């Protein structure tokens, strides 16, 4: 076969093409397992991508998706000039960074500390309880948090009042200056346990002989925690860090929506409005579709950029994700 094919290229190409289609047809029953899902993805994930183009156009209801009047970068210019958007961008960045600095390390510390407890039973019980807030929706979480921090008989205010630390109850969810703190606190409550799972799993992979060897070498407790436990889970930490940074501006939409009464609480809007809630209000609420699409796109672009930067930095220490 081979010598003949060197002389004549064409038969090989035709043969190759026929192969793909024949191969495809030969495994058609396998393909049928996959094709419905692919169609689903094309419909629900790819078709809406015209939203990216929408940001550069003037979309009106009734326009065929992606075929509206061209507007260039007009919306983006308008966005940057809009003080509302600048505020929204500020809120998004602040909340994201606060969460990164506070909420990212805590599950790691939690996992390492709990690992130091000797009783397996205790460890397991604490873990199981800590996952519970993950399994409720933000609607339920908001309900619990609203009551916990309520002005009217809520646990926190009652405690603070009876300890004499404050004179009048604090309206935790009613004033915009408290919102950033509340967003961070309620999020920690909800995700601490769940986010620590992956670190517990990584810790369990640590070779216990390492601990004994370190002990013989005279390593103290903190030394072991740092040089063995943390060192082993470092790749996991970095992996998660890259993903978190890449998702940085996707501040939890559901959390913000439920804690602010779906943006109905105007008192909080100054600090609570983030990119996704802004898109929701302006786009679906005020029907300024292209403008909202532009806002969303700005967020996505920042995210992808951050992801690539984070990955590059991680690559320097040999821990790149891509």
């Amino acid at each position: 076969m081979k010598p003949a094919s060197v002389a004549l290229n064409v038969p090989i190409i035709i043969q190759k093409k026929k192969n793909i289609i024949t191969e495809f047809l030969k495994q058609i029953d396998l393909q049928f397992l996959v094709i419905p899902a692919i169609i689903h993805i094309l419909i629900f994930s790819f078709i809406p991508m015209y939203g990216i183009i929408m940001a550069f156009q003037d979309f009106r209801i009734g326009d065929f998706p992606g075929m509206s009047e061209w507007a260039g970068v007009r919306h983006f210019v308008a966005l940057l000039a809009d003080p509302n958007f600048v505020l929204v961008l500020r809120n998004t960045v602040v909340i994201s960074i606060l969460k990164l600095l506070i909420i990212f390390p805590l599950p790691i510390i939690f996992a390492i500390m709990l690992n130091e407890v000797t009783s397996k039973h205790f460890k397991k019980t604490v873990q199981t309880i800590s996952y519970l807030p993950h399994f409720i929706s933000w609607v339920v979480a908001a309900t619990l948090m609203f009551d916990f921090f309520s002005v009217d008989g809520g646990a926190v205010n009652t405690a603070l009042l009876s300890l004499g630390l404050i004179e009048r109850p604090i309206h935790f969810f009613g004033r915009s200056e408290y919102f950033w703190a509340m967003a961070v606190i309620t999020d920690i409550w909800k995700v601490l346990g769940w986010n620590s799972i992956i670190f517990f799993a990584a810790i369990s992979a640590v070779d216990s002989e390492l601990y004994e060897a370190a002990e013989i070498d005279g390593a103290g407790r903190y030394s072991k925690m740092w040089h063995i436990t943390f060192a082993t889970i470092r790749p996991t930490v970095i992996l998660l860090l890259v993903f978190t940074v890449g998702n940085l501006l996707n501040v939890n939409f559901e959390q913000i929506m439920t804690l602010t009464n779906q943006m109905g609480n105007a008192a909080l809007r100054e600090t609570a409005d983030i990119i996704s809630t802004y898109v929701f209000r302006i786009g679906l609420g005020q029907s300024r579709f292209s403008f909202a699409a532009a806002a969303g796109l700005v967020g996505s672009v920042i995210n992808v950029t951050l992801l690539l930067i984070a990955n590059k930095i991680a690559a320097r220490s040999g821990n790149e994700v891509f």
Partner: protein
Amino acid sequence: MVKRKSAGDWVFDIVNISIMLLIVLATLYPFITSIAISLNDANDTVRGGITFYPRVFTLLNYELIFQNPLVLNAYTITIARTVIGTITALFFTSLFAFGMAHNNLVGKKLYTALCIIPMYFSGGLIPFFFLIRSLGLMNNFWVFIIPGLVGVWNMILMRTYFKGIPISLEESARIDGANYLTVFFRIILPISTPIIAAIALFIGVGQWNAWFDAAIFITRDELKPMQNILLSVISEAQFAQQMAQFAAEGGGALPGDIGRGAARVNIRSITMATMTVTILPILAIYPFLQKYFIKGIMVGSLKG
């Protein structure tokens, strides 16, 4: 080798365990106190001080909320979307993952790219909204089911698991003449319980807790799930709070305040009863769930 504990060790252990207990308390307290309030007489709750248990036990709050036909209806919707949504999504996603686990799949690279791209590029909420509208899924129960049929993350987890199954099992079955569907249902599925259980759990919990899709795609009351009923209730509660704070800050007594006062009390009890009802099934099966989702995550991530 006997490990001698130094004084420093003891201090560390005590502090550590105390912190852990504090975390447990902070996690559980909102749940316990809310359930206690739901089981407590509304007029007694006003007096404050309910912490871990109801002082004046009553089931009245629950009776009241179930008198509202909307609540029973919403519960049915939530159960329906959870059961139907989980089974259908499991079906499509697992078959998809099984197919993708085959190295000889024609077009595998293309399919994989199609899966990954939407993770980074999305058109956003508004085109999705229009799409749902054009598909006729507005105010339609199936809007809870159809968009969620294929989850790429879930597919990847399942694919990792399936790849770990020895190909010889499949090959010997195919030699005996079985087609891929038969291979999947008769051979692969029975030995895939850990991952199926884990994914079913994730999808199920996701369905039970979903509320935003109903918020923007459903306006008919009879299609609202339980989460959205709770959402309406806490919106009212928050409104009452605003009024209370406004009055407390010297905004002047509003004529409606007196009525609001009484309403506020009942709103709290009603809110807690509604919330407890909403999370009841989750709480009930929670103790039994741990091994499934832990295993699922470990299987999916460690192998990958």
